[in-house]
């Protein structure tokens, strides 16, 4: 089964920086409140977890590193790649950044 999570609708259209203490909608908050629990659940049930990226104003690199990067550092890039996928029409370059600049370098 595929679990779909729309970031703009379910989390926020304007995303913040790396840490909670720096402001709302941070990468740390997204990781702890959304990404890690959803990833664990999907992994347990052998589901895939698809993130719909469109609809936000953009994804700061620090937000991505502290959320999707942290996930790869804690659970391994290969495991994360098996479970997490993305869908976007606007932010294909964000997916490239996650893959090439964050996940490839976490291996």
């Amino acid at each position, binding site marked *: 089964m595929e679990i779909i999570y729309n970031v703009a609708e379910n989390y926020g259209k*304007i*995303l*913040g*920086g*790396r*840490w909670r203490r*720096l*402001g709302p909608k941070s990468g740390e908050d997204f990781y702890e409140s959304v990404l890690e629990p959803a990833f664990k659940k999907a992994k347990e049930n052998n589901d895939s977890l698809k993130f719909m990226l469109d609809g936000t*104003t*953009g*994804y*700061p*690199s*620090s*937000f991505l*590193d502290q959320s999707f990067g942290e996930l790869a550092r804690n659970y391994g890039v290969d495991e994360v790649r098996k479970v997490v996928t993305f869908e976007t029409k*606007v932010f294909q*370059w964000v997916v*490239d*950044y996650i893959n*090439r*600049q964050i996940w490839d370098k976490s291996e």
Partner: protein
Amino acid sequence: MGQVRIEKTVLWEIIGFTAVVFSILGFIGAKVVRFGLTYSKDISIADILNIIITSVVTLTAAWYLSKKLSEDRFTKEIAISDLKEIEQNVAEIIHKVQVNDQNLVNDLMMLINHLQQLLLRFDRTCKFERDEQSVNRINNRFLALYGCATNFGDDPIDPQFVIQNGNDLIVEIRDTISNINKL
């Protein structure tokens, strides 16, 4: 810059046309000498046909060359125009990082998104003239700029690092345009 290029092209077209005319005259002259052809005041139908066919072929060749050069020139001028917008956008990103106001995150994300759209447009404009390596180099430069300009963590964003990555991106695009111009 565009005006100088247009004048150069017209000059080459005139030189080319003159060369073609002189070649034809030389060819006819050589035939006259070689075969001992005689001059006659009578005009034959073959002469008229020869002139018409030669003129049509010359004009068609000139029209085709002129059209091809004009199309190439148009693509190059659009690419240069895109480059100016990209440079302006990168300058705005650098300025925003230096000012560091309250709306920094939102404003920078809008500028970065706009820059990505400009790069996509540039990519589509020049896609027939560019090689895959050049596309990858520009993408990598963009991702490096994006990475450092939107890294909102404990330390403030380093403007010098953003300037360096912005300049690297612009230089890469300039190199690409320069290579397209050489084609």
